[in-house]
């Protein structure tokens, strides 16, 4: 009797010690090999976003979203084909650079990941997609909006956001109908994303009979926009459209106000972040921007997600964390349906994805784009992103 009790206490101690160790392992990022129990299989999921450079904060936001999903799935326990599976995240940094993007893509292929969540920018997702396609690994971009990404004929490219072919016209409609602009100046950051969005916007706005008074190009690392803005000021546009990210869009908006330009500044999802209010200062009241997905505040579980995110990472959701979060769930959902963690088998069942995620209904058309694309328009009230309109495509 006393003996068996002793054994019970010992094993209870051992189990709790193991749990503590596991939790400690998770706390340190959760991707330590030591946290994987011996009876479980490790399955790697790749994540790529810029973790250095001007939009490193958005990259980290994306990575955090994926990490949160992964930790929740591991905590709940995942069994595929009778085997216990522990997911680990392989986070990579593409520095918003097309060349680096292909290098880290190869690195992930070599690491034998089951699927990839990323990349953040269209300009990196597109060059990397060839490598994933050759390796037969599913790539789900949480935030690439350039239409070309899924138009290359690859079976591996998926995305969870609407495209710029939807976002550009949505913005253009708002500018011509709600803002009643007669003239517009367009500036882009010369990236595949910024230029692509600006092109789509230009097409629709011209068709609506609005005059494009000037088209300017800057770059994604610029800090000074006064020269370009001065030229824009000379053309007296009703609205300025900017295709680019918040790290450049914020300063641009601020400098426009300093030059005494009163025009509204309209931009896409790249600059539609909470951070923009800080970067643009008081001038942020001039901004109208769009997000290529459902607004966090309009998601059924949005508030709860924000709370969990804040507890785990002690920072606010910037923009696309809910989408990387769902991307991980989409991959896991496919693993379950395929009853395998083999990338080629996951890829086979990806087209049949039909699930309700945090961001809403997720199902793909034959290119890998979302069947139900959503565009949300925002402006800034009291320096907070405020929903103007939700447009279903």
């Amino acid at each position: 009797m006393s003996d068996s009790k002793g054994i019970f206490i010992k094993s209870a101690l051992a189990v709790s010690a193991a749990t503590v160790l596991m939790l400690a392992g998770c706390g340190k990022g959760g991707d330590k090999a030591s946290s994987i129990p011996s009876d479980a299989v490790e399955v790697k999921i790749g994540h790529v976003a810029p973790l250095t450079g001007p939009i490193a904060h958005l990259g980290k936001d994306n990575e955090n979203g994926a990490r949160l999903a992964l930790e929740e799935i591991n905590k709940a326990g995942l069994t595929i084909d009778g085997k216990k599976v522990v997911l680990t995240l392989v986070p990579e940094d593409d520095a918003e650079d097309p060349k680096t993007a292909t290098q880290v893509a190869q690195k992930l292929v070599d690491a034998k990941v089951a699927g990839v969540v990323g990349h953040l920018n269209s300009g990196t997702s597109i060059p990397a997609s060839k490598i994933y396609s050759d390796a037969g690994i599913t790539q789900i971009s949480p935030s690439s909006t350039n239409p070309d990404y899924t138009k290359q004929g690859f079976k591996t490219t998926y995305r969870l956001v609407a495209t710029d072919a939807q976002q550009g016209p949505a913005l253009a409609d708002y500018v011509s109908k709600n803002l009643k602009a007669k003239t517009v100046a367009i500036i882009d950051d010369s990236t595949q994303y910024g230029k692509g969005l600006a092109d789509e916007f230009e097409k629709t706005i011209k068709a609506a009979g609005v005059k494009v008074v000037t088209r300017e190009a800057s770059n994604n690392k610029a800090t000074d926009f006064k020269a370009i803005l001065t030229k824009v000021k000379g053309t007296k546009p009703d609205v300025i459209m900017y295709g680019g990210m918040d790290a450049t869009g914020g300063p641009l908006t601020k400098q426009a106000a300093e030059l005494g330009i009163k025009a509204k500044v309209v931009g896409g999802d790249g600059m539609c972040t909470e951070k923009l209010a800080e970067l643009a200062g008081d001038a942020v009241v001039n901004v109208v921007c769009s997000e290529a997905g459902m607004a966090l505040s309009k998601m059924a579980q949005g508030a709860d997600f924000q709370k969990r995110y804040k507890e785990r990472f002690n920072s606010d959701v910037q923009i696309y964390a809910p989408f990387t979060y769902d991307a991980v769930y989409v991959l896991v959902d496919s693993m379950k349906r395929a009853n395998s963690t083999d990338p080629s088998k996951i890829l086979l069942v990806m087209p049949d994805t039909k699930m309700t995620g945090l961001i809403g209904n997720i199902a793909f058309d034959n290119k890998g784009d979302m069947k139900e694309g959503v565009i949300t328009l925002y402006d800034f009230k009291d320096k907070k992103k405020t929903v103007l309109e939700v447009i279903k495509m």
Partner: protein
Amino acid sequence: MDILLQQIINGLVLGSIYALIALGYTMVYGVLGIINFAHGEVLMIGAMVSLSLLRLILSLTSDLPGWLTLLIVLPVTMAVCAGLSYLIERIAYRPLRNAPRLAPLISAIGMSILLQTIAMMIWSRNPMTYPQLLPSSPIDVFGSGATITGKEIVIIVVALVVMCGLLFLVEKTKLGRAMRATAEQTQIAALMGVNPNRVISITFMLGGALAGLAGVMIASNYGNVHFYMGFIPGLKAFTAAVLGGIGNLQGAMLGGLLLGLIESLGAGYIGELTGGVFGSTTKISLLFSCLSWF
């Protein structure tokens, strides 16, 4: 007319910042014959340090007028940057003084990556807002429609004063003479009783202090700081230094101002002058073609 005037004002503001940074490149090249590619990062550290100091001061008291706060922060920042520059020279360049020329260049790039990463660890990877201490509302220039802000006036004036001070230091003082001597022939200067190591350290520290000043200027002008912010100004200032003839102080100042003006006017007028053949994106390539032509 107001547009032309505005572009010239933009160019002058940009140019005076470039000139300050270019001086750091040119001075170091003058005495050592190497290009200190970590210079832009010193500028970034300057902006970051001044932000931390500003936050500290603002948390203690909010009654101080903006210019006074800046006046307290500036010397401390410049001292920190001078110290950092000194360390960079000791760690990354001095051990390689007699190595082939490529070696210090590589250690410079390494230093630059290291500093960026350290800044990212200390101050996070988020862009941060820099408090607006100087007036930033547009002032009309002579009723022409062109505008300038209070902070831009301060930037131009401070840059001019500092540049004149530096010229005086190099041309008229004993230290300046030692610097010029070291630049001309290090060994012979040493024979004449100049301690070249000391002169080189001081040159680096002066350059670092100027970079710190430029960092504060950029941060207060654009209102944002970021661990990546030193890269582009560093590159442009390097271009300015080359444009003015690297190693030449007056040249760096003129090169900086000229580069700022070319950039502004280029963005404004290249498109029109060439009938749209070249757009605003080509201004930098145009500049580099100018450079290779010189």
